[in-house]
């Protein structure tokens, strides 16, 4: 029923210059790494990217950055990336910082048809500038708007031909919300399975949100390997 792409290049071919894209992942975990590589190859430019982080210098969204394909970045933490800093200071890259939970909720709202909501995060801080402040039950809140994208790129462990997705552990993170907020949502899945193979009670993203899927292996780079020595 859904479009199944045979290559990652094909999966991103409709993403044009000046598109707004949302990309799942927290750090390098749960990012659609092959879709990002295909975007780098596509040379599409002037992207607005909505994602919690912006990868590292040589992986994930950092590759798009290095290739100067991003005009604007909306995220909560962009600190793992020297090229990011250089481009911002040089005025080549616009940044909109949003508190992480507010970012997640803005994306959920975008996908859920909620144009705006009130959140306490950021009251009295620089991010409150230009935002409406309103008091409910004696506490101040900021008006935050929903976010949508032309394309949402997500990564799941399992996807089926009906578009249903199941994520693995903390690779879930922003992916379920981002899947809901794209005009077109493309899922990079590690395992593409037949319809009927998923227990309908354990699906994280119902297929209605997903327009296309592509299967592929992932490298899954680890940013901060922390291990306990065997006693």
């Amino acid at each position, binding site marked *: 029923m859904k479009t199944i792409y045979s290559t990652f290049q094909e999966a991103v071919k409709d993403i044009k210059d000046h598109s707004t894209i949302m990309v799942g992942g927290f*750090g390098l975990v749960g990012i659609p790494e092959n879709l990002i590589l295909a975007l780098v190859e596509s040379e599409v430019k002037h992207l607005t990217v909505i994602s919690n982080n912006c990868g590292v210098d040589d992986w994930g969204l950092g590759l798009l950055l290095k290739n100067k394909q991003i005009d604007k970045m909306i995220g909560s933490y962009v600190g793992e990336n020297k090229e990011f800093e250089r481009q911002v200071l040089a005025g080549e890259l616009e940044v909109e910082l949003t*508190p992480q939970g507010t970012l997640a909720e803005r994306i959920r709202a975008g996908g859920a048809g909620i144009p705006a909501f009130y959140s306490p995060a950021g009251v009295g801080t620089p*991010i409150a500038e230009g935002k409406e402040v309103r008091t409910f039950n004696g506490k101040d809140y900021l008006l935050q708007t929903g976010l949508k994208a032309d394309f949402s790129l997500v990564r799941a462990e399992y996807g089926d031909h009906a578009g249903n997705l199941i994520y693995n552990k*903390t690779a879930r993170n922003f992916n379920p919300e981002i899947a809901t907020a794209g005009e077109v949502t493309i899922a990079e899945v590690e395992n593409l399975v037949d319809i009927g193979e998923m227990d309908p009670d354990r699906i994280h993203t119902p297929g209605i949100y997903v327009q296309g899927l592509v299967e592929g292996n992932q490298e899954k780079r680890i940013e901060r390997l*922390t291990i306990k020595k065997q006693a």
Partner: protein
Amino acid sequence: MAANLDKATVREKIAKRAEQEIESGYYVNLGIGMPTMVANYIQDDKQVVLQSENGLLGIGRSPYESEVDPDLINAGKETVTASKGAAYCSSAESFAMVRGEHLDLAILGGMEGAQNGDLANWMIPGKMIKGMGGAMDIVHGAKKVVIIMDHVNKHGDPKILKECRLPLTGQGVVDRIITDRAVIDVEPKGLVLVDVLEGWTVEEVVESTEAELVVSDRLLQQSN
């Protein structure tokens, strides 16, 4: 004045004191950096669930090499394990937990704290802005917000101020500040010094604090 302890020892001292804030049955969010260290000191007889805002309720110990799963990290992006009884969730759900005041306690790092409970811990003007991550949401969510930090900066200047000079993370959000020298509560009447750590005197703490400190009755009685 207290002996010059090395940095690691000071951090350990603060982390151990912060551990006392955690009660059995608590759900706790530990910030990145020194707060994460607090987990190492949680006493075995306390049942505590650590929340990681990237979508894990129930952080376990670090993995053995054979257990490492690249899909399983904490908010500091370190590989972790999940504790028994853990649950994964999405980022929106994770912050629904936070914002909805379901966490009993958050322990976060601080650059500056002010006597009205303001906190600054995310941005130094002129330096590169890395982003606030989840801190701005967490300070408004947890039922109790404890800040841990050095009492003074590397130049010896106070970090507990009448007013924060750095851009804020949150306004009036801090409940308690724990440093290498003292435990200070934010109360409607201002900052109350409730404890002085080993090696320091009340006078030394007051002197190294820009904000006004009210010395708690308990401390006053002790010094009498």
